[in-house]
Structures are given as C-alpha cells and as structure tokens.
C-alpha cells in the first residue's frame, strides 16, 4: 500500500521582527518542517514499520528549491521519497489559497494513487486548516479532521480514529479507506532524525514537478484570496508590569499572590 503525507516548510518568527510590505522580513525567519506535519510523517512511518506488507511513504510538498532541506527531514525520519511542486506561477501568489493547494495535490494524488493521505491539521504560517478535507472532497476520498488517535494497520479497509473536539471530548469514528486524515499534534512522539537517517535521506529522491508536469496551468493556482495588508496587532494590554531585577519583580508578584489570598503569609 501507499501513504501520501503532505508536508510544508514553514517559517517560524522570532520574538522581535519587522514587516516588509506583505511579508515578515527574511532576517527574522527560521525555516522548519511544519509541526503538525511532523506528527503526520511519524504516523505514516509507524504504519509502515508495523506492516507485514510493503508500505511506501511518499512526502508531497508545494515549496521552492530551498524547502528541499526541510523535506529531507521527512525522508530522514522514514519517508521513502518525495515530490516537490513549484512553479513561477505559484511563487507569484501573495497567498496560496486552499483551492490552489488542493488543485496541485489533486494531481499528485492522481499520479500516486495512495490508499491513505495524511496531512497536518494546519500549517503554522498561513493557518488555513482546510487543505486535507478539501482535498478529500476533490478526489472522492473519505476524511476525518483533527485526528489525535489512529488505529489502522496496513491493508485494513477501515481506520478507527479519535477526533479531538473542544473541551476535552473525543469523538470516535470509523472511516472507510481510501481516506484523508488531518493529524493533530500529540498523536505520537515524532522521532528525531538519526544520523544514519539523515545520511540515507541524501540518497532518496525528491522529484521536482512544475504545474505543466501535473497537467495544470497558471490559472489553476490563481486563487481568489489576495493578501493586501500585514501588520502587528495592536497590543490591548492594560497589565500592570513589574519592572526591575528578578528579585524585585518576584517580591512584587509574591505580594499580589498574598493579597489575593491564594498563598499564606
């Protein structure tokens, strides 16, 4: 069987940063594998490792050449190969919307014909949280969003998942395959890439694809959403801030705690 995992290189922003036009200035960004996708990769690799049959794990990403470094982390953790889609038309988008992403992944699914697709619940940068379910609808797969427990063995025709609802309630659902599952953090413990894994990843294939390779044109990624402004939210803080040394601030805080009556004199 085959598991496709959609992964994304996302930028983490330092505490202090500056915005340059419609983006955060490059100096304040550090790139990494999207946290949710890390859990999705781990879930896929665990299924493959536990299987009696051969399970291929393919990572698919939409990202520039630079993102190969990050995608190799997925390969180092056990994915067998990767597909990376990029194109000038994608680069030109101010914000690649859900429809555009799904149009690309739809073609990757058509090429790869996976039994199971795992995605992260959302990407830490644009936070749409919609690609997995929209993709499932587009390709006619079943789906479940915000999965924090997955009971599935390679070859099974159904998966049992838990969906993490708000307020500490979980929904238990049985899903027919093929399916797309969006994976929540905490579902497993993502492994660190071993040195051996990192070495092996250098030999694994990251196949570059542009839109024409996938039978698409620039219009397919010309989304309806356009980013027109980016700014730091205005602080609404009216907190009383204690200033000074750690000892001074701790003393003031201790006095508040005593005043509130939650600790004794």
């Amino acid at each position, binding site marked *: 069987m085959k598991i496709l995992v959609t992964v994304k290189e996302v930028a983490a*922003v330092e*505490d202090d*940063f500056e*915005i340059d036009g419609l983006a955060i200035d490059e100096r304040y960004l550090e790139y990494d594998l999207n946290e949710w996708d890390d859990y999705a990769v781990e879930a896929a690799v665990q299924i493959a490792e536990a299987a009696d049959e051969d399970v291929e794990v393919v990572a698919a990403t939409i990202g520039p050449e630079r993102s190969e470094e990050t995608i190799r982390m997925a390969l180092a953790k056990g994915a067998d190969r990767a597909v990376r889609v990029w194109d000038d038309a994608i680069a030109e988008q101010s*914000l690649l*919307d*859900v*429809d555009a992403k799904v149009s690309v992944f739809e073609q990757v699914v058509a090429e790869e014909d996976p039994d199971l697709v795992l995605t992260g*619940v959302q990407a830490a*940068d644009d*936070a749409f949280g*919609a*690609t997995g*379910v*929209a993709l499932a*609808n587009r390709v006619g797969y079943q*789906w*479940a*969003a*915000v999965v924090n427990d997955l009971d599935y063995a390679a070859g099974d025709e159904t998966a*049992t998942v*838990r*969906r993490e*609802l708000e*307020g*500490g*309630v*979980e*929904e*238990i659902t*049985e899903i027919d395959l093929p399916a797309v599952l*969006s994976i929540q*953090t*905490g579902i497993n*413990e993502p492994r660190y890439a071993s040195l051996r894994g990192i070495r092996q990843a250098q030999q694994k294939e990251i196949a570059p694809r542009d839109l024409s390779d996938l039978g698409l044109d620039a219009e397919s990624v010309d989304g*309806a*959403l*356009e980013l*027109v402004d*980016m*700014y*730091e*939210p205005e602080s*609404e*803080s009216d*907190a009383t*801030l*204690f200033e000074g040394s*750690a*000892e001074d*601030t*701790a*003393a003031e*805080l*201790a006095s*508040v*705690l005593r005043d*509130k009556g*939650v*600790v004794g004199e």
Partner: protein
Amino acid sequence: MSDVLFVAEHRRGELRDVSYEGITAGRELADELGGDFHVAVVSGGVEAFAESLNTPEVDAIHTVDAGEEFDHDTYTAATEALHAEIDPAALVLPNSVNGLDYAPAVADELGLPYATDAVGIEYDGGLTVTREMYGSKVETTVDVAGDQFVVSIRGGEWAAASGAGDAEVSAFDFDESGVADGSRVQGFEEVGGGDVDIGDAEFLVSIGRGIEEEENLDLIRDLCDATGATLSSSRPIVDNGWLPKNRQVGQSGKQVTPKVYLAIGISGAVQHVAGMKGAETIIAINSDPNAPIFDIADYGIVGDLFDVVPALIEQFD
C-alpha cells in the same frame, strides 16, 4: 444574491457559544450586503435549537431534522442543499473542530472562495477578511474575489446574540438518499480524569513551551510546593508527554476559572486563552514583551522564567 446563511453548531444536546457569535457576525455582514440573514441548524433537537437561535438579529431559521449528532457527510450535503435553495452571497460557518471537518468540503464542492478562521469580516463592494498568521504574531487583511464566498469564523471574536426574535422557522427537507456513509461516528469519550481536577483549583501555576526541557519542570513543581498551587500547562507540554492530558488548559483541554492563574512561559495562543480567560486574576511571566498573554494579563513580568521563578520560590521559603 445578497443574503447571508450561517449554520449553527451543537453538541450533545447543547448549542455551542459560536452559534450565537455567528448570529452577530452574520447579521453584521447581511447589513453590509443589504440582504436577509438566514440561520440553519442541522441534526439533533432542531425545534428546540431553533427556538434558542431565534434572536432579533435573525430573519429566517431553517431546521434540518437528520440524525442526532454532527456527521460531516450529513452536514456537507445539507449545507450544500441549503446553499442551492437560498443562494446566499456569504456562507458563514464556525471554524471549530467540527467546522474544520466539513466547511472545506462544502466550499470545495460549491467551488467558492474560502477564507478560514476570520477574526474580522467586512463587505464594502467586496469581502475583506481579517486573519492571523504565524501563531497570532501578525494580522493580515485578505481581499476575497467573487460574488459568493464561504468564510469560517473564529469562536470568541464576536459578541453572542441573545434575546427573543420573531424569525420564521421552517423545516428544510433535502434528499438524504445520496448522503455518503464512508465515516460513522461510534461515540464520544471524555478525556482527562486522573489524579487531580485542575478545574477545582483556586491557584493554578501553568507552564508552557518556555520551560524548554522536561527536567526543568522540577523548578515549576518546586514553585507549586512552595505556594500550594496546582500545576497545569498549555498544549505543547502535554503533546510532549511531560504532563498528562488532565493538566491541559485550553480549547481542547480543560476550561478553568481559578482565583489566580499564573502563566509561565506561555505565549497565549488563542486556543490556550479560550481555556483560561475566565480566571479572576491572570499573571504572566514571559521573556517576549509582545506575547499575546500580556493582552489579557492583569499583572506581568517581562523576564526570563529561569531567573524569576527561583526568586519567587525564595519569597515563600
């Protein structure tokens, strides 16, 4: 095509807060568009739900009597059928966990632009949505092209509608025979339990990513010992397996209302804040002066927790 349709949300017999917040958001948008505001409620005790949702802001309520609980196949099909009937300019859905499980399918099926997790919506000849990116570090303005669109709204961003209205309530029938059955809800389970109920605590010391390493938790345990506080945490600590799930405060964890909530090394992501904003007094210790936790804190210390917490422990030794 200037109407607005909002689909309410309920779970285990109760309408969720976002249902009333969505009424406020939907009404504002309908006023800007110059159309009527429709609310739909799907599954469960729809007649009783319709009565609660019938606030002065609503023009029409549609009940879809199909199944008891949320089922994404039913919700997707019912919403599409309602959309075909009402033909609204805007379809507004909650960006809740269940919203995440069907709204993207609806938008894709309808072939409409989809803006998610809106914290602000305006229509002035075109739809403009305010969204956050990079874990709430920046806010963005996004223009949405098209005469029709789908937008999902973040809970807690609009005031909840209340009061009695006189909207016409009508039952909406749609052809359920074609509804997919590829996923089947088997049941629900409460998570947590365990050794302590953080919901009962008067003084919570809550720790987040800022603690960096599991062994550093001992420092926070020492603080709890010195002050008699109960230890809780934000999501990453539980995801890492450093504390059990019953200690997690937040949207997907426990909602707490202690007398004092001391947040240490917690940035204050919206999902966390949803679980603790009801605390009487909120105190934050964080090295990032721009951390959103300071927006809701009553008292704060901008500093390194590894300096401040030992000094705080000394105050009580």
